[in-house]
């Protein structure tokens, strides 16, 4: 198991290097001179030249890339914001808890709603409940988040005056953004729960459980749901990862001072180091979320855990067998 985790951690290295390289290239081919863009059309040539020097833009892209990688690896230095001259990592870390909180609340909402609707939909297949739940899910995945956010502000903040429109100063401020993000996330979870549960409840062991006289509730919740949760968990993990980066628009719509709003503001202000650092940070976070989900599988399903073990044992045995064969050949 530990070997597996180590292997996964090592696999992250080329992925993250690739991410840095892609961001570097995208920023490099972005039209315009960042120094000129930063200073505006009224800046003098000297000021632009000084800014280019200050920003290190006169150096070769390969040198800048290597410097950046060295900074990230050795000092966890994600660069310095063009605009505020502050280290990007410091600003990211101060904002990340807000984004994490929003993603967490959304995940809780979407898990509760998604799994509940999924169960209802699967157990009452082809009934009005199923159609209703599927309809809600279809609505949830189809509706664009930012539009839903704006609509909910108009309805709940302007017309009804029930909830604040923007900011993050108390529990009531989180309701609209979390509900907005939760709608699409719960739709995805609901659809996965439904299809996974439908597959599981047709298995022989479910029939056996029923024939033993267990209550339908226990059959579904204990025997069915537990086994149907593996693919659902993958989706939840993916959703959580997406939410860490995908709440970008919603943070802007609701003026929540998280990582997403920070990155959107930076894009508007063409503060490239912030965009670069933000994307890299999200890539790292996403990779860890994925790893965490994979580890969680083994706790949900012992077969997967034994597979990890068997894999490593079998690889070892295979190696020995190969050596024996080779030795045998040599002896002949």
């Amino acid at each position, binding site marked *: 198991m530990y070997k597996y985790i180590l292997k996964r951690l090592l696999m992250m290295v080329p992925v993250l290097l690739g991410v840095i390289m892609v961001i570097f290239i995208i920023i490099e081919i*972005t*039209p*315009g*001179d*960042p120094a*000129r*863009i930063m200073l*505006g*059309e*009224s*800046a*003098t*040539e000297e*000021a632009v030249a*000084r800014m280019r020097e200050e920003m290190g833009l006169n150096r070769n892209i390969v040198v800048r890339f290597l410097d950046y990688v060295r900074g990230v690896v050795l000092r966890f230095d994600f660069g310095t914001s063009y*605009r*505020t*001259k*502050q280290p990007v990592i410091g*600003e990211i870390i*101060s*904002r990340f*808890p*807000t984004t*994490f*909180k929003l993603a*967490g*609340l959304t995940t*809780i909402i979407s898990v509760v709603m998604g799994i509940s609707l999924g169960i209802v939909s699967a157990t009452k297949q082809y009934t009005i409940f199923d159609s209703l739940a599927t309809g809600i899910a279809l609505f949830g995945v189809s509706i664009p988040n930012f539009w839903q956010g*704006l609509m909910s*502000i108009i309805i709940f*903040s*302007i017309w009804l*005056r029930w909830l*604040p*429109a*923007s*900011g*993050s*100063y*108390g529990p009531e*401020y989180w309701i609209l953004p979390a509900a907005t993000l939760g709608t699409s996330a719960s739709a995805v979870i609901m659809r996965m729960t439904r299809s996974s549960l439908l597959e599981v409840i047709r298995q022989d062991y479910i029939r056996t459980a029923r024939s033993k006289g267990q209550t339908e509730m226990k059959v579904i919740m*204990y025997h069915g749901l*537990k086994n149907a949760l593996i693919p659902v968990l993958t989706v939840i993990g993916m959703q959580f990862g997406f939410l860490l980066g995908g709440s970008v628009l919603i943070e*802007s*719509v*609701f*003026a929540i*001072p*998280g990582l997403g*709003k*920070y990155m*959107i*503001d930076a894009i*508007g*202000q*063409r503060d490239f180091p912030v965009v670069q650092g933000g994307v890299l940070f999200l890539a790292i976070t996403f990779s860890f979320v994925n790893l965490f989900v994979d580890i*969680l599988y083994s*706790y*949900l399903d012992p077969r997967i855990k034994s597979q990890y073990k068997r894999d490593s044992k079998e690889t070892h045995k295979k190696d020995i067998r190969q050596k024996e064969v080779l030795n045998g050949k040599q002896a002949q």
Partner: protein
Amino acid sequence: MKKISLLLVLVLLFVSLMSGCSQPAAPTTAAPTTAAPTTAAPTTAPPAPAKDKLVIAMGAAPSELDGNGKNDSPSLQVRLQMYETLVALDESMNIIPAIAESWEYKDESTLVFKIREGVKFHDGTELKASDVAFSLIRGDQMGYVGNNLKVIDFEKSGATGDYEYTMVLKFPFAPVLSALTVGAAAMVSEAYVGDHDLDFLARNPNGTGPYMLKEWFEGDRIELVKFDDYWEETKGVKELVFRFIPEAANRAIEIEVGGVDIAYEISPNDTLRLQGDPKVQVAVGNNLSTVYIGFNYTKENLQDKRVRQAVSWALDLDPIVEAVYFGLGSQGKNLIAPSVWGYSENVPQYGYDPEKAKQLLADAGYPNGMTTKIWTSNNQQRMDIAEIMQNQLAAVGITAEVEVIEWGNFLVALQNKELDIYLLGISASTGDGDALYNQFHSTSPFSGNTGYYQNAELDALLEQSRLETDPVERAKVLEKVQQFVMEELPWIPVWHGVNSTGLGLDVEGFVNSPSGTHILKNVHFK
């Protein structure tokens, strides 16, 4: 069952982790003399509007709070509540005393400023003329004031007493007082700056203004508190809270639902909506900006002024102001905005006359019309103007292709003289008609003289406008400049902009500053 318990434990762990995230950060109140950073996670109590706390929604967070730091508008909107310049501008763009109580010209290139006594910095030390000398040199060296202070001969200028500063200019330069109002030329304490590095100063301001920094919540808001030792009695509230809300629509919503007391930069369509809302006041006032149509003077067909005038006669600006700016602001009449000092109405005007346009084109050697391109960045309003222009020009035989390019590329193309007819905006940052020098003098860089216009007669007039120290005479020279450019039309003015600010019904004392950096020291609740 064991596995489900484990899952439950994980969920609980996650929830507790999140609640951990929501713990209020340790307060990092910023007394300027302390070394503690003034940033905190944005998680504490709500800045709900109270009668002694004014909440303002602005478009972006400041870059920095160093008095001589970056000159961007969000920084100045906050900073100029905490710092003051030697002299200031009132809402009509007249120079008024600030740190300097009075001033007089000893000769045409020597000014003596009497510094106000008893002015204190937020750390309690008193401002002296030596701080003034230090601040101006530092402002110039930091570079964010542009060329505004280059005219000062710093070797010969300096404190000539505790409360007297003598400024010697390299040559007579009439707009020097306006140049001193630039936000990045604010007064800073020599001792305080000497004791700290730039990173610290960017976050820990120490000015002489009516408010001082309380806390800066990264990405969310900045809270200021009234400075008790301010040199003047003010009517302002005890606390100012600047919230950063980038979306204009969200700022409008916040003022509508009472989440903030003041909302800056309301978009034209929201302005119209809020003007119909009885629970909100909307202050609409002129700003210093002008949107214009520029001509690349290096292109042969655009060098003939009859072609430029023909374009102007072919355009009907009324539908542009109505459709693009929802009737707000005013149709462009001149190449500086009406609120800029020196603005004159006595300049040639062009109406909508397609026949005259055709005639001028024929006179210029294009009886069958001409082909050109209209370039704009991907700014929605300018793209809309370009489309309307395209149709109107077609009516007089000018076939214009609209080219929309990203802002970065637009600047590069402008610099490389690749554009033909283009749409841009300009703002006279010091509020003085001297902006015309930067816009049209042949030695001005492309950043000001965007069309590379060259005319020796105009150069001479612009130079004369800088030498004339008598305001009345100077205004006359500036009027001649404006008459000249409106006849020659290196640019066609399209629209003069406005600042639109949403205010709660109980807010009183707000005065629109054309520069957009509204001073809030006398804003209070009814």
